[in-house]
C-alpha cells in the first residue's frame, strides 16, 4: 500500500504547476472566469501547453502524450482547475475514446492536433428530448454514397462555438428495435455548410450552445466505429476513459480563501461561532472525496477493480454534493454581501463565490445527472437488479 504519487507523477505535477504559475496570466483567468468559452489568450495558452506536452499526458508518446496514466490526467485537471486555466476537457476525453474506438487514420488525423492545443472538439450528445435518456437522440444521419447527410438539433453543447470539431452522436437506423442499436458516432468539421450555432446562456452565466444541422454532408471517413455501433463508442468515451476522481486543490483553495476571509473579517462576532466547524466539515468532505478519487484513479491505472466497484463515480457523487454545500455555506458566511455581483461596489472576494454559487446547480446535472450516476453505481457497482 502506498498513497504517494510516484516520482514521475510528482515531477509532472511540479512541471505543470510551475508552468501554469508562470503562463496562466490574468488575461487567461479572466477569460476562464467569464465562462464564455476559450478566448484568444486561452487558445494561446493551450498551444503553449501542447508544445510542452502538458495536455494529454495519458496518451502514447507517438500521439504527443507522455505515456502516463489516469493519475497524470487527474493531476493535469487539478492544476488547470486550481489555476483557472482553460479546460480542454472534451478534446482530450474524446481523444481517449478515439484511442479505443477510432481507426488508425482517425487517430493520426486528430490526436496530435488535440495534444498540441491546436484543435478542440465539442461534445454533441444531448438533444431537447434526450437528456438523461441519451439513447433517444434523433439527429438523423442518412448514408449517401461516400458520405452521410445530417439533419437535426443538439443542445447544451458547451464550447461548440470555439471548437473546430463536433463529436456527434447521430441516429442512423430509426427502425432498430432497441433504440441504442441505431446510433452512429461522427467527428464533424464545425465549419461544414449547414451548421448553425446559437448561444444559450446558463443562469450561472456560462455560454453554451444549440447546434442545428441542416443537410450537412459528412464524409464516411469521419464515422467513428461501426455504423449503428455508436453506443459502444459513447460507452468508451463515458467509461472507457477510466480513471476515478481527481485531486481537489481548487476546492481546498476556496476553503482556505474563505477561512482567511473569516479570520480577517468575522472572527470575533459571537454569531460566527458556527463557521469553524462548518468549514472543517467541508474540508473533511473535500479531503475524503479527493482520497476516494485518487485511490480509484490509482486502481484504474493498475487495471484493478476497486473493492465494491464503485470507483470514481462514488467520489464524483460526494464531490458534487460537497460543492453545493460549500457554496451554500460560503454564501451564508458572506451574508448580505454575498449577493453582490463581481462588478458591484462592496462585492466580497471579487464576486467569485456568487458566481460559483449561481453555477453550482449545473454540477449535479450535467455530464450525467446525479440520478444517472446513482443508477450506474447501484447496478454496476453494487450489482443491484434493474427492473
Amino acid at each position, binding site marked *: 500500500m502506498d498513497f504517494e504519487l510516484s516520482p514521475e507523477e510528482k515531477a509532472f505535477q511540479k512541471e505543470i504547476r510551475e508552468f501554469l504559475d508562470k503562463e496562466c496570466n490574468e488575461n487567461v483567468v479572466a477569460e476562464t472566469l467569464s465562462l464564455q468559452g476559450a478566448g484568444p489568450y486561452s487558445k494561446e495558452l493551450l498551444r503553449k501547453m501542447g508544445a510542452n506536452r502538458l495536455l494529454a499526458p495519458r496518451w502514447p508518446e507517438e500521439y504527443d502524450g507522455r505515456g502516463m496514466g489516469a493519475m497524470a490526467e487527474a493531476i493535469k485537471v487539478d492544476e488547470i482547475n486550481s489555476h483557472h486555466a482553460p479546460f480542454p476537457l472534451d478534446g482530450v476525453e474524446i481523444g481517449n475514446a478515439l484511442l479505443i474506438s477510432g481507426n488508425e487514420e482517425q487517430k493520426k488525423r486528430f490526436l496530435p492536433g488535440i495534444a498540441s492545443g491546436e484543435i478542440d472538439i465539442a461534445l454533441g450528445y444531448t438533444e431537447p428530448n434526450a437528456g438523461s435518456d441519451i439513447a433517444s437522440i434523433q439527429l438523423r444521419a442518412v448514408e449517401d454514397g461516400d458520405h452521410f447527410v445530417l439533419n437535426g438539433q443538439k443542445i447544451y453543447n458547451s464550447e461548440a462555438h470555439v471548437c473546430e470539431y463536433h463529436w456527434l452522436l447521430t441516429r442512423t437506423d430509426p427502425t432498430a428495435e432497441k433504440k441504442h442499436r441505431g446510433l452512429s458516432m461522427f467527428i464533424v468539421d464545425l465549419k461544414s455548410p449547414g451548421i448553425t450555432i446559437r448561444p*444559450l446562456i446558463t443562469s450561472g452565466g456560462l455560454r453554451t450552445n444549440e447546434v442545428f444541422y441542416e443537410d450537412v454532408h459528412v464524409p464516411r471517413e469521419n464515422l467513428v466505429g461501426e455504423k449503428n455501433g455508436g453506443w459502444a463508442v459513447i460507452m468508451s468515451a463515458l467509461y472507457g476513459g477510466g480513471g476515478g476522481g481527481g485531486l481537489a486543490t481548487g476546492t481546498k483553495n476556496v476553503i482556505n480563501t474563505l477561512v482567511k476571509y473569516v479570520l480577517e473579517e468575522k472572527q470575533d462576532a459571537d454569531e460566527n461561532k458556527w463557521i469553524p466547524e462548518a468549514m472543517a466539515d467541508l474540508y473533511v468532505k473535500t479531503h475524503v472525496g479527493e482520497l476516494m478519487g485518487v485511490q480509484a484513479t490509482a486502481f484504474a491505472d493498475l487495471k484493478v477493480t476497486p473493492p465494491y466497484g464503485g470507483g470514481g463515480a462514488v467520489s464524483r457523487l460526494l464531490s458534487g454534493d460537497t460543492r453545493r454545500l460549500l457554496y451554500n455555506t460560503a454564501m451564508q458566511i458572506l451574508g448580505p454581501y454575498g449577493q453582490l455581483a463581481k*462588478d458591484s461596489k462592496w462585492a466580497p472576494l471579487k464576486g467569485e463565490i456568487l458566481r460559483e454559487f449561481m453555477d453550482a446547480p449545473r454540477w449535479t446535472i450535467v455530464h450525467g445527472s446525479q440520478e444517472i450516476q446513482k443508477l450506474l453505481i447501484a447496478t454496476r457497482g453494487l450489482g443491484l437488479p434493474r427492473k
Partner: protein
Amino acid sequence: MDPRLSEEQEILRKSARDFLTDKCPKTLVREMEKDEKGYSPELWKEIADLGWMGLAFPEEYGGGGMSSLDLAILLEEMGRVCFPGPFFSTVICGGLPILDAGSDAQKRKYLPDIISGKTIFTLALTEASGKYDAASVKVKATAENGNYIINGTKLFIPDANVADYILCVARTDDKAKKPEDGITVFIVDAKSQGISTTVLKTIARDKQCEVVFNGVKVPKENILGELNQGWGDVQKIIERAAIAKSCEMLGGMEMVLDMTVAYVKERVQFDVPVGVFQAVQHHCVYMLVEVEGSRATAYEAAWRLSTGRPYSSEAAITKAWVSDAYQRVVALGTQSHGGVSIMEDHDLPLYFRRAKAAELAFGDARFHRKTVARNLGFKV
C-alpha cells in the same frame, strides 16, 4: 380552527392572480431587472388604483381597511410572479410603520400619498455589518438648532434609488448603556441635500442601494415615534417584515412546485414521464413538505399579527423555516427539471435568485433561529 380563507379572501386572491398573470408576465420581470428604476410606473399606478397599497390601511386615510392577513395573501401572489418594484418597501417598511408609530399629523401627511401611489418609501436600517441588531446601527443623528444632522452610510437599502422618503434608523445617543437605547427613526425626504445613492448589483437584480448621509438635515418633527426609543418600533418593523417577506417567499415556492410538478408529468425520458421515477417523486414530495410547512407557519404568523395576538416568536419560527425552505425548494425543483432549468431564459433561475435575496432580507434562518433559541431559554 378553520385554516380556510374567507370568501372575500379567495376573491382577493383570484383577482390578484388574474391581474398579475395578465399584467406582470416574466417578460416584464426581466425587463425591470435591467431597468434603472426597477419598476413600471404604469403598473404602479394600476395597482394603486386597485387599492393594493392601501389595502391594510384604515379608510380614513383612503385605505381599504382590510387586515394584515389580506395583505399576506396579496404578497403571496406577488411572490408567485416575482413582482418587481417598491411595493414591499413602501407599504411594509414605510406606510405601516408610520401607521403604527406616527403622530396624527404624520399619518395625515404621508399615508394618503402612499395609498394613492404618489410616494415611494423605504427603510434605511442595515449598515456595514449587514445585520439586523441594534448594535449595528452606527449612523449618527446629532441635534442642532431644532434639526437633526445625519451622517453615515446605510447599505443594502431596497429601492432607495426611487424612494421619495426614507425611514432612517439612526443613533441619537451613543452614551446609552444598551445598544438598543439611543436609537431614533427619522422620516427623511430622499431629495434632501447630502444624500447620495448608489445602486448595488445583486443576484436578484433588485435595487438594493448604498445610501450615504452626509450632513443631511432633518427637522425634529420628522422623528417617527419617540426620540431615543426607536428600537422597539424597528424591532416591530423587522418582525412584521419577516412575516410579510415569508408570505412573498411562500408564493414563489408554490410557483416553483407547480412548475416542477407540471414539468415532470409531461417530460418524457426512457419512454415514461419522469414523474414516475421514485427519485423525482421524492424530490417533489420534499418540495411539498417545504411548501406546506411554509404555508402553515406563514399563515399562522400573519393571522396572529392580524388578530392582535403576540407574534414575535412565530415571526422568528416562520422566517427561519421559510428561508431554508425556499432554497431547498429551488434546489429540488432544479434537480427535477434537469438541464433546461439552469438556462438563463428559464423561469426557475428567477426564483433561484430571488430565493437568495429573500433569505437574506430581514434576517436569515440563522438570525431567527437565534431568537428561537433565546425564547427557549438560551443566552445567545
